[in-house]
């Protein structure tokens, strides 16, 4: 074996390194500062190496691997960087599956590193062996099993490149224990910049930009739909310039929220099943629909054969399989919207669509009368979820990162939370993973430490991952938690009320004393069930140094409206 060079290795020299150390060196070289993980037998060598890397890598010890991956998602979503997860083989690895599926459908860049049994034991049903590569194939953008230490640097370089480039997504690298322990001559780390079988973004074709601009310039009632692609492409500024020059009203999907501030005059609201009235109804009246970085999810489109049939459709997306997947386009614009939007902005004529914009405003006024006013400023005795968000908006001014779980409170948070800037709302959009918010909020705070992070969670969702209060306790991370407790699995109850003759089948869920549970984890808390106490409690929560849990008792049987019932067209949206 070579003797260790006395000086630091130069660009061409190799150094004897264990696979475990090479793994951590790769993370440091990729600029990783925080990892979320949980140790176990098959990943012990990496944890042993981590003992000496504590200066460079902040390891957050979670309470369950699902918590680790949701935290990494929260980190990635609030920071725009790659979230990193470390877990052991077998159950450690399978506990990541929900988070992988969530990150895959929501295009979140993650690198998950799992330990695996020794290579010679693969396929023997060894202790804590599971075929995690095949289990995770449908829910990863890419995955790879490493059985030799020499493969580690290149595999991880490729993993980071694939996770963050093109349409981002989760990748998983499974490293057998022998590969972690093996010593090899490690070359200096080389980041990956090219995989020949992989085209992250195409060369933009000008003729399609020109055709799109031509359609927009002729349009009388154009309408912009934007999604998370604008955020993932870091194209918020380019998007704003396009919207402002073209003067076209723009509506958002729940993952696109905040790319244009809520208060922007051309931001006409939220799309979809529980979105705003105008954007849904007028989808079926616009003459040109331009979709930017969104994928026409069924929760956005409702019934497809009655969706925007009158409109010519322009679709900007980096993923060519999204174009014409659900909605037939007139002009496809394949590319990174960071590149395509400025080209389009140059070609569109500056316009103001005042009369058309006024129609959105008319619908907003109707929605305020029918739904919003009573939700945000209720006259009823009981508290509503909406008024909690309204009070929160008034106190934070829209500067907080909101992390919402899944269900009624999620729709309320998406509809009513003020957003001044991008990356201010982390939620599980595509997969709808209950239990997402508490761990995601922890990660979001590590990803945006300078911003207040407020998790808004229902009484169902918080009980799915409540053990992560332990992570908050141990790390001291400052996360404000609002539990909106309606003593029901509210969204399912709403469907049972509206579509299943009020047969409330197993939606009546009991809660523990959340303030006492929080106290058990040495987290301060308060429970509120009267309107007079709400504002002071929120003020106390926000002013409190460190984490705080605020439980708010809200109306038991409140419904989220407007609503596009399943199987209906967006134009059939109901206000009540």
């Amino acid at each position: 074996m070579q003797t260790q060079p006395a000086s630091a290795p130069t660009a061409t020299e190799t150094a004897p390194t264990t696979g475990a150390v090479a793994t951590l060196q790769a993370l440091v070289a990729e600029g990783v500062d925080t990892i979320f993980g949980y140790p176990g037998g098959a990943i012990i060598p990496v944890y042993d190496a981590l003992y000496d890397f504590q200066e460079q890598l902040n390891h957050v010890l979670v309470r369950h691997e699902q918590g680790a991956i949701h935290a990494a998602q929260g980190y990635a979503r609030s920071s725009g960087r790659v979230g990193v997860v470390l877990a052991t083989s077998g159950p450690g690895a399978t506990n990541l599956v929900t988070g992988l599926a969530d990150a895959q459908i929501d295009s979140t860049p993650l690198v998950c590193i799992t330990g695996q049994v020794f290579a010679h034991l693969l396929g023997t049903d060894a202790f804590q062996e599971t075929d995690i590569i095949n289990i995770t194939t449908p829910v990863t953008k890419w995955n790879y099993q490493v059985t030799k230490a020499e493969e580690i640097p290149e595999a991880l370089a490729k993993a980071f490149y694939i996770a963050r480039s093109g349409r981002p997504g989760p990748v998983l690298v499974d490293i057998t224990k022998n590969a972690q322990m093996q010593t090899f001559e490690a070359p200096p780390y080389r980041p990956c910049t090219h995989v020949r079988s992989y085209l992250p973004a195409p060369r933009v074709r000008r003729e399609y930009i020109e055709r799109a601009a031509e359609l927009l310039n002729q349009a009388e009632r154009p309408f912009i739909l934007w999604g998370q692609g604008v955020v993932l492409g870091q194209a918020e500024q380019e998007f704003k310039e396009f919207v402002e020059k073209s003067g076209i009203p723009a509506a958002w999907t729940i993952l696109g929220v905040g790319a244009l501030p809520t208060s922007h005059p051309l931001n006409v609201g939220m799309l979809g099943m529980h979105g705003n009235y105008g954007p849904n109804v007028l989808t079926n009246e616009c003459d040109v629909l331009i979709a930017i970085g969104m994928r026409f999810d069924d929760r956005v489109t409702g019934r497809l054969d009655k969706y925007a049939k009158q409109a010519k459709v322009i679709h900007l997306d980096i993923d060519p399989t999204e174009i014409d997947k659900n909605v037939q386009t007139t002009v496809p614009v394949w590319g990174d919207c960071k590149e395509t939007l400025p080209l389009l902005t140059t070609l569109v004529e500056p316009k103001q669509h005042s009369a058309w914009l006024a129609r959105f405003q008319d619908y907003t006024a109707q929605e305020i009368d029918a739904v919003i006013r009573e939700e945000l400023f209720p006259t009823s005795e009981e508290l509503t979820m909406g008024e909690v968000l309204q009070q929160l908006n008034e106190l934070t001014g829209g500067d907080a990162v909101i992390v919402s779980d899944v269900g009624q409170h999620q729709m309320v948070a998406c509809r009513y939370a003020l957003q001044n800037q991008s990356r201010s709302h982390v939620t599980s959009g595509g997969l709808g993973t209950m239990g997402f918010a508490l761990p995601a909020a922890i990660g979001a705070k590590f990803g945006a430490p300078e911003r207040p992070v407020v998790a808004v969670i229902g009484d169902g969702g918080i009980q799915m991952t409540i053990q992560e209060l332990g992570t908050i306790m141990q790390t001291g991370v400052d996360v404000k938690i609002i539990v909106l407790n309606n003593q029901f699995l509210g969204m399912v109850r709403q469907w049972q009320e509206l579509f299943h003759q009020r047969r409330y089948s197993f939606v009546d869920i009991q809660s523990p004393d959340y303030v006492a549970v929080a106290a058990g984890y040495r987290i301060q808390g308060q429970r509120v069930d009267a309107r007079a106490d709400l504002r002071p409690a929120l003020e106390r929560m926000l002013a409190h140094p460190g984490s705080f849990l605020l439980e708010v008792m809200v109306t038991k049987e409140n419904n989220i409206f407007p609503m596009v019932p399943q199987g209906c067209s967006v134009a059939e949206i109901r206000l009540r």
Partner: protein
Amino acid sequence: MERQEYNITAYTENQVGLLNRIAIIFSRRKINIESLNTSPSEVEGIHRFNIVITETEEVVRKLAGQIEKQVEVLKVYYNPNADVVWQEMALYKVPTDVIAEKALVERLLREHGARAVVIRKDYTVFETTGHREETDKLVQVLQPYGLIEFVRSARIAIIKASDGFHRKLQEFERREPSEDVAENEFLNEREDVFTM
């Protein structure tokens, strides 16, 4: 839109696990793969999948897109049968005495272009290549004469209008040597290794 047979041709890297990644694109949508063949291609180090399914053009287009989206897939084409030249191979095992004794069988085999691959005292193996209807026909013909075993290969297909993949490869990436397939080298070392 009408369902018909489509031939999907995928050029890929040679990687462990890619077969599964491609197969689940079909199984996720509950679509049956009628025939699947993996082989080398005209470009060294690049693998070629031939997949046959019966679906509408729209479904096939979306499937092809999903396959091409996989990181280790370079390019995917899909063609109806009219656009490809294809063959399947079939093997038939029949008792030798029947062939030897019945002149009719010998004539039938000749008519179907079957060639003997192995002749033994007890059995003979014949081979034909052709389209499915052709290879199927011989099964029916041989059935009354004691067909012992029959097997047919996956379809292999050449695209009529293709110039090959060499030029295409240069179009969207610089030419690099193919990576070696990293396989598990440790499976036969169980006795030599101490594990916890």
